[in-house]
């Protein structure tokens, strides 16, 4: 869309204004990773530079942050993969195919109902369930619970993206004799890649930053990043420096994923342009 010069300048100002409001506090938070606590709590803008927070975070006896990063990554990628595959297939079937209405209502209604309940009310039940089969503290438990926790949102999102596809394409393929599976893999799936990437990014972020489930279901060996960072918010000594250091280290993988996903968004568009 081309714009007249005036509205272009306005648009740019607005955009970079937003960017500033977001970047400002974020950069301040990240800069705290390199400051002493006294400088953080007094809001000093110019202060001595130090690596002490990273030291505490990475090398002290009680903190195993690199292992925590690995755990978060494993859990995040696995649960996101499960969610996206399951949600996309189900979304396609529910939106485009002939499914009995009661099936659709039951599945979506239950998903929504489950999503509306506060997480902490059923984390206890999950603890009971998993520890009774001896799976407490395992990757499996956390991956599965993250998956089912994020499934409702992914499901509804994919349904809206699939629903935006032109019906004629689907009809045409069906009339040509394609089976449902073929319609999905050849037509629907390539076209919703853009939406899939957005849903993937959000699901991954929700899994990466989950605290309530990870706190209860992980043990020392499977502790994830948010729980590890939370250990520095102590009873009467909030270790802002270590928390900021942990945040800096955890943003890097998350951002990488998103920036890589960006390329896929663009490529997904090109694929979609070949209509």
């Amino acid at each position, binding site marked *: 869309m081309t714009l007249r010069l005036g509205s272009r300048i306005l648009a740019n100002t607005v955009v970079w204004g937003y960017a500033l409001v977001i970047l400002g506090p974020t950069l301040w938070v990240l800069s705290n990773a390199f400051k002493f606590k006294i400088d953080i709590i007094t809001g000093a803008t110019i202060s001595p530079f130090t690596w002490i927070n990273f030291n505490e975070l990475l090398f002290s006896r009680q903190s*195993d942050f690199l292992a925590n990063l690995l755990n978060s990554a494993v859990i995040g990628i696995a649960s996101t993969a499960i969610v996206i595959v399951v949600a996309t297939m189900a979304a396609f079937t529910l939106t485009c195919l002939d499914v009995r209405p009661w099936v659709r209502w039951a599945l979506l209604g239950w998903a929504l109902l489950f999503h509306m309940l506060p997480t902490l009310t059923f984390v206890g039940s999950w603890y009971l369930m998993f520890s009774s089969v001896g799976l407490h503290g395992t990757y499996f438990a956390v991956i599965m619970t993250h998956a089912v926790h994020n499934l409702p949102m992914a499901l509804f999102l994919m349904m809206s993206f699939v629903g935006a596809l032109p019906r004629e394409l689907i009809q045409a393929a069906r009339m040509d004799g394609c089976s449902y599976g073929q319609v999905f893999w050849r037509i629907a799936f390539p076209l919703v890649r853009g939406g899939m990437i957005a849903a993937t990014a959000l699901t991954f972020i929700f899994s990466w930053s989950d605290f309530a489930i990870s706190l209860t279901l992980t043990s020392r060996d499977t502790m994830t990043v948010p729980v590890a960072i939370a250990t520095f918010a102590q009873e009467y000594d909030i270790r802002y420096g270590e928390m900021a250091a942990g945040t800096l280290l955890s943003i890097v993988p998350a951002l990488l994923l998103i920036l890589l996903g960006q390329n896929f968004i663009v490529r997904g568009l090109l694929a979609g342009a070949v209509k």
Partner: protein
Amino acid sequence: MQSFIATFSRRSMLRACAAAFIVAAGVGTALAQSQPPVTMAINQSPWLNSFVAMVEEYENETGNKIELDVTPFGGLLEKIRNSVRGGQGAYDIVNVNSLWLSEIYSGGFLAPLGDVQAGYGLPEGVLTYGDTTNWDAEAGTFTGGGALMGVPVNGNVQVLYYNTDIYAKLGLHPPKTWDELLANAQAIQKEGEAYGFVPRAARDSIVYNFTPYLFSHDAAFFRITDSGKADVVVNSPEALKALQTYVKLATESGPPGPGNIAQGELIQLLATGKGAQAIAVIAAWGQLEDPNASRVVGKIDAALLPAGPAGTVASSAGHWVAGIPRNVPPEKQKAALAFLDWFAAKERQVDYVRAGGVPVRGDITGADLGDDAAFRFIGAYSQNAQHAVMGLPFAQASEASDAMALSLNRAVISEMTPAQALNQAAADLAGVLERNGFAVTKLPDL
């Protein structure tokens, strides 16, 4: 199945390496027999490092292993609950905060120490912080005669912090009564460079912080008169005086917006020198003496909390007690008790203080620590520890505390008068007690 799904642990590799490096015991005689490894649930905290140092000392001395599972403070209670309520506990020792003690004790989750080792009693000199190491299941409260349930591992009581520089400048002395404290605060506030007194009146901890005021005025929240009978006395005239003092100190000579000042802000103000006096737990001492976290290193001292009109002193107990759950094998229980007993001995406690911890004994003096100025808090600590009290010593303490917190907080932010607040608190407390099976008598409204 589990071994396939469970994660391979880097830590177990590290542990194996560490074990290879352990020097054979040469010092101390402690426990001769070897014990199975023990797992302990504990929170990440400033004093954790000192505790870890003690654990390492124990491991070196006896070769027995203690595994620490470090959890954020906000999640430790839930982890403990999950573990002790299950069939097979994940932890052999649980670190329980004073605020959770009544819940964990009354649930019957812990093994009385006298059951783990016949006839076991706390070593002489170990503090009980208002009998909180014992529990009488019949009466439903902490009494000296009840069964011994745990060993304290961190003696966190409140002390009165004050800035020695500001005191020297204005010619002030540590106050003996609440009125003197108020006078000091007003003098400092008038001088203008710092806040006279920093309250901690945020809703989530206000009951805990109001407790010393209440008890030092010879009042209480409630009193158990007989088995199953309770007398709600939080709206007595003495309590009113206590609350008026609390509100006065919070609003007249301190920072604005006291209703939202939590521990973090309080320590922030002390550490930057903008707060001259405050009542806080002794465990904050470490931060105030750390040059990376404080501008007042060497300028802070601790004192006994002020006394009420009749000379009573009370300090809110925020300590930690280690208990041994019932749902672990007896060998582990014995191993756990062996460690805790080792930990409570006087020489170990001196080491503990040297490493940065707060001792659980009342008999450690400055002389034991070589009169080092870094440990100058020890005198005030021991004094305050003798007067430690638990405000709500019954099973539903958290429920009651939550119920009353709102009214007290409202009094501080002037949404209610102190009298109204106490009447409301009495009603709420009575409600909680009645819901839990007590026959409640109340005082007439103020």
